[in-house]
């Protein structure tokens, strides 16, 4: 695990990130939220993978309706 993980986790947890990543598809995040999210994603591989999965699912639903 990344040595900075716990430090960053102190500011925003993976659980909170998972909510923001989902909400990003439904509303505009605030500048502060984007900053915290970006920072966390930059050092957390697990959340990066999650964010990729969410993008994949959105694309899958787009194809589903076309």
């Amino acid at each position, binding site marked *: 695990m990344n040595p900075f993980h716990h430090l960053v986790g102190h500011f925003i947890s993976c659980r909170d990130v998972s909510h923001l990543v989902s909400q990003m598809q439904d509303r505009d995040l605030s500048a502060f939220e984007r900053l915290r999210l970006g920072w966390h994603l930059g050092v957390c591989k697990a959340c990066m993978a999650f964010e990729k999965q*969410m993008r994949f699912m959105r694309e899958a639903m787009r194809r589903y*309706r076309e």
Partner: protein
Amino acid sequence: MADDFLKQLETQRSYLLRVARLQLRDQALAEDVVQDTLVAALGAQAGFTGKSSVKTWLTGILKHKIVDAIRRKQREPVAASTLDDEADLEDFEGLFSARGSWQESPADWGDPEQALNRRQFFDMMDFCLEKLPPNTARVFMMREVMELDSDEICKELAITANNLWVILYRARMSLRECLELNWFAGGGRA
């Protein structure tokens, strides 16, 4: 000419029925709504310019019919309480540690194109969508297939934005879990 158009519409019936059933969770009502959609489409043939695909055009008409049906259903006093039940987050708490870190990292799903080019993948999507709780599926389909924005959905269903985001989160987390289990970890991808 009209016959051709009718045939074109008929080929979309099963897709429309699937979408309607997922949102309404009522086979008879879904069939009615799809029938209404096809009849309306036939009457509005002149409105079809061919700029979008027949499927996209029909989905647009279906969207209005479904919203009308939901509106009528909404007058029956059930939806709000069940929506609250389905806005419970406990099911997904186990994915995270007490500190809020992932217990197990989400997997790398690889190249999306590979899955998205396979018919079977979408059969699996259908299977996973069917497994969502009824109101969760309805809200998710309103958002992702009907492409209604958050405000519109909140207004239609008389729920708060926070409530909506939680329901959509649940839908995505459940779908993710189902796909990971049945497609990405299983034989589907091979």
